[in-house]
């Protein structure tokens, strides 16, 4: 028996949060992976801790999938209901774009149990989606389309009494994909302020994640139901392990991108929570035995999970392949010796930072956070923010002081050369057609005079130039009184000076911009996996793949489900 090594108590290296200049670059944000702090994981932890009960109240659906279903979620004294409508849709009408007018299924999350009047009202509006109107008794509006090939394949197998082919299930990962999930007052839905004091809805996007979780349940129930109608008594139900491999797909285009730019205080909170979690994991000493075991288990599963991550996009394929290599390198690095050394998780992070691709580095971040849940899960509670607080401009300072703020916190903005055509090549706009956000080529298409205010870097650079022409002791208020066109930029700079992770530090109108980097950043915070680019501005993902179903929440090791 070896003598236990006696280690002198070391002075712990203080672990700082990673610098905004590193974290807020779009290529890194666009390499983000889900973490324990992602919103759907927070939802599931709460669901289990509070023993939410989900009851299928109604399921009146015919052999074509047309009909109405209601699922009630009991959260303490409250009830939330998913009201689902199935439709029959001609194949040529099926599209994931905002310009669609019909869908395979449409949904609303209703506050309470809906009575017949409510269901009638919802039935008249929900299938019309954006063209309908909703009340504050509805929290979320959504719609989904079938993944036709897989849906039919699964239906066929189950109706003949067989389980569907696992490889096919894995390749797609969902029966249906949502193409929009709306909340916060859109089309008359309840304002977020009305519900944000309810603990279960206080976190970001909890109502939306709950809705998607229930939609997932609906899709599985639907295919089993249709199989029974088609195959009679010999029809099979999905085997539980296979059933868990169905998540909900999501098809996201540019519509989501402006959100990350329009909510700087919120973005700062999300990033701060994640970076704090990383810092805590790195700082941990000695590394907890449970954390080490978790890390190794998650890493081990990751080889298989990453190998199964399918995409048609050549660039992403290349990144995934490289990520697979990176995982093997982490495995070789993370030896027993590392784990008995000083701050082993920090050693692993520094190895990743020095040696791995961006996907690999950010995946390492996910693994480190995953392994240390006991010391980071509390950070999920701090990811919401009251944006009204950061809205007001402080006009009491001088132009000189403001200019110094710009230089100190937004230097990245005026390091770009906006005289260069490439730097100005794009413009964000909203199309008249179905009000769809789009990205145009400034010099090649009409419409730039109707540009949306997403060129933050350019506007901050213009502010800096204007401030340079002002007497340093002039008040900001006087400057803005005379030049109100700079209000937008001043607000951003003042927010940035207090919130280091509020700005994406890249030019959002550059010719080389990859909008999917913005989308992926937000979707990673939702808890998405299997990022599958369909162009530089369209991203497919899966949510809840592998997650326990309501009747499985009580089972033992469930919180590891993303790495199961």
């Amino acid at each position, binding site marked *: 028996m070896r003598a236990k090594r006696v280690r002198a108590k070391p002075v712990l290296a203080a672990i700082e949060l990673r610098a905004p200049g590193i974290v807020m670059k779009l290529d890194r944000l666009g390499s983000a992976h889900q973490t324990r702090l992602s919103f759907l994981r927070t939802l599931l932890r709460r669901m289990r801790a509070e023993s939410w009960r989900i009851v299928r109240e109604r399921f009146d659906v015919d052999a074509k999938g047309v009909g109405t279903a209601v699922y009630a979620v009991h959260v303490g004294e409250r009830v939330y209901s998913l009201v689902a409508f199935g439709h029959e849709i001609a194949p040529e009408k099926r599209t994931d774009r905002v*310009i669609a007018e019909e869908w395979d299924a449409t949904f609303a999350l209703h506050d309470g149990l809906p009575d017949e009047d409510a269901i009638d009202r919802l039935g008249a509006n929900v299938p019309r989606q954006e063209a309908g109107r909703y009340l504050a008794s509805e929290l979320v509006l959504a719609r989904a389309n079938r993944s036709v090939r897989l849906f039919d394949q699964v239906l066929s197998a189950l109706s003949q009494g067989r389980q569907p082919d696992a490889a096919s299930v894995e390749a797609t990962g969902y029966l249906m994909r949502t193409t929009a999930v709306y909340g916060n007052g859109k089309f*008359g839905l309840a304002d977020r302020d009305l519900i944000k004091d309810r603990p279960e809805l206080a976190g970001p996007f909890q109502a939306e994640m709950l809705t998607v979780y229930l939609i997932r349940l609906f899709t599985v129930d639907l295919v089993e139901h249709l199989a029974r109608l088609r195959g009679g008594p010999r029809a099979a139900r999905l085997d539980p392990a296979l059933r868990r491999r169905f998540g909900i797909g999501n098809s996201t285009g540019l519509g989501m991108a402006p959100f990350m730019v329009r909510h700087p205080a919120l973005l700062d909170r999300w990033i701060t929570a994640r970076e704090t979690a990383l810092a805590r994991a790195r700082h941990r000493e000695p590394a907890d035995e449970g954390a080490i075991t978790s890390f190794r288990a998650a890493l081990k599963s990751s080889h298989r999970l990453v190998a199964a991550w399918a995409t048609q996009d050549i660039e992403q394929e290349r990144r995934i392949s490289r990520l697979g290599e990176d995982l093997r390198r982490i495995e070789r690095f993370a030896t027993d010796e590392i784990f008995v050394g000083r701050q082993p998780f920090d050693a692993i992070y520094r190895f990743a930072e020095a040696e791995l691709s961006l996907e690999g580095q950010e995946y390492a971040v996910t693994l480190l956070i995953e392994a240390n849940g006991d010391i980071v899960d509390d950070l999920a509670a701090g990811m919401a923010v009251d944006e009204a607080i950061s809205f007001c401009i*402080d006009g009491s300072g001088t132009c000189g002081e403001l200019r110094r703020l710009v230089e100190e916190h937004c230097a990245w903005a005026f390091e770009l050369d906006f005289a260069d055509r490439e730097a100005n090549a794009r413009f964000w706009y909203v199309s008249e057609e179905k009000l769809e956000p789009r990205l145009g080529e400034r010099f090649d298409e009409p419409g730039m005079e109707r540009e*949306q205010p997403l060129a933050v870097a350019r506007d901050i650079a213009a502010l800096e130039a204007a401030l340079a022409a002002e007497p340093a002791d002039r008040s*900001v208020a006087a400057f*803005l009184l005379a030049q*109100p066109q700079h209000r937008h930029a001043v*607000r951003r700079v003042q927010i940035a000076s207090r919130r280091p992770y509020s700005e994406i530090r890249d030019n959002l109108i550059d010719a080389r911009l990859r909008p999917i980097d913005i989308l992926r950043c937000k979707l990673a915070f939702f808890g998405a996996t299997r990022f599958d680019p369909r*162009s530089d501005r369209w991203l497919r993902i899966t949510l809840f793949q592998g997650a326990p179903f309501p009747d499985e929440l009580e089972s033992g090791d469930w919180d590891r489900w993303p790495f199961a």
Partner: protein
Amino acid sequence: MGSLAFRLMIVSLNEIETTVLKAARGAGMEWGLAEEAARAASSLARLGLAWETPLLGVLESAPWRTPPVLDGMRLRPGSADAWLCPIRSGAFISDLGEDAPAIIERVLFPILLLPFAAPRQGELAREPARELAWDGVTVRLEAGTVAIAPPRARSLDAARADEVALRPARIARKGEAPQRGLPAGVVVAAGRWAELQGYEARTYVPASTKSRLRGAGPASSDND
């Protein structure tokens, strides 16, 4: 417009904010000012005060093009026949906080000054109660609430005021200020909402085949 004008609809505060943001921009305001207009409109709506008429009135007359002039503690239009924009003036008041001018001269739709004069709370400071007064009405502003004296003062909705006074609230309130609950939806005349959407539409770019194919979607068919 006939029957549409008299139909009512229920909108959320968020819809008011996002619609007014784009409407103000569509009417010609810079985005930074449009953000202020949007906040002001939804703040008034939250307080149960009329917001559509003054807001549309401002969009129609475009007074934000008139640069305000600060003359000691008075804010006034640069020329004798002009009127101040309550959004542009309000933003200035909000920026200065407690150092705001005491008198705002010749301003359109003074009710729109309310959200800007309200004490700020949060990251910057918690400021004491203030008052705005014009033409026989006094509005006391405390964090999140307003008290209007007299309660049914018609000049509250006036299209213009020659002089608006801004000062610390004079009379100590007796007891707790009544907090108004957040409305679960705001009633709006459909005709007025349509007018706002008319301005909003000026920010949209008409589609072309090129933009439809290239601007938003997947490279190829997205169904499988």
